[in-house]
């Protein structure tokens, strides 16, 4: 795991974070539920809580789908290529490429179809970008959520040990949980963090 330079994180007084969707996207409840599931995965292993807000002004995190140049100097490039990007804490900017074909199913796609589809699993990308919003950078561990690339049709939504260790360096574990490491997927390579659990 890695962090942004200076290791920015949400301040201690901010453990309850709110998120809102850009209203112009007119997202269905089904799509919004995908993001709720993605936030829950991080909430389970940290002291952070995430609540949906209807107010863009009051929300800590704003989520929107955009195409091409959309005002932050990081234009999207059409289907595939870059899929989404997110800011480091405490900015809370979460942008997804509106030109992608997003899959919002919870089921894994058949491996037979994987290599020939350009559809991207939304929850996988959401879990990754939320990692950035909370302060994690990219990881070289291929099984980790914070690994930067994902193949079309692939689905990777469970936090790996590497992700959990990284986020708990920033915020500590969930006081009501087991820390998540008992149930996390094992990652290859024998990564060590030096963190005392």
């Amino acid at each position, binding site marked *: 795991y890695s962090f942004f330079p200076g290791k920015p994180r949400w301040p201690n007084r901010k453990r309850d974070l709110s998120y809102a969707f850009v209203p112009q996207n007119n997202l269905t409840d089904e799509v919004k539920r995908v993001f709720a599931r993605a936030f829950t995965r991080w909430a389970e292993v940290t002291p952070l809580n995430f609540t949906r807000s209807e107010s863009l002004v009051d929300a800590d995190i704003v989520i929107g789908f955009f195409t091409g140049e959309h005002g932050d100097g990081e234009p999207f*490039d059409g289907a595939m290529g870059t899929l989404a990007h997110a800011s480091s804490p405490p900015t809370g900017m979460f942008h997804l490429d509106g030109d992608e074909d*997003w899959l919002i199913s919870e089921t894994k796609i058949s491996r037979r179809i994987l290599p020939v589809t350009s559809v991207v699993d939304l929850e996988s990308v959401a879990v990754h970008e939320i990692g950035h919003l909370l302060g994690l950078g990219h990881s070289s561990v291929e099984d980790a959520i914070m690994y*930067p690339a994902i193949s079309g049709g692939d689905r990777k939504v469970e936090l790996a040990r590497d992700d959990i260790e990284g986020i708990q360096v920033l915020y500590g574990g969930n006081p009501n949980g087991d820390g998540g490491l008992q149930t996390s997927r094992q990652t290859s*390579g024998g990564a060590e963090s030096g963190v005392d659990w």
Partner: protein
Amino acid sequence: KFYTNISSVPPLQFLNASRSAWETFGKLAGCHVGEKVDGLSKLKHYFRRFGYISTAVDNFTDDFDDVLQSAISTYQKNFNIKVTGKLDASTLRQIVKPRCGNPDMIDGTSEMNAGKKFRTTER
């Protein structure tokens, strides 16, 4: 567009699967230091986009220079690809994959592969 299951994806989406924003990089396979090949400047833009080249210069040349070689080597290290500094098939396969738009390196530094330590056991 949102699809609730894979069977609702129209056939065209499958046909277009190989079309990627970076598919043209595929023809750069085998390029090495000293060569000048159309498309290398676009590849340099890719590496700058993700933090592997930190210059502010916009008019990249199509020369396979030391800067590009260094960027490729760092990229290979970050993605656990054998570090050769060359545009081999495994590196290009990784480059054309869809990915997060956040850079892997910021201000020329990266901790992306720094946390990984290998433990050896003496027998």
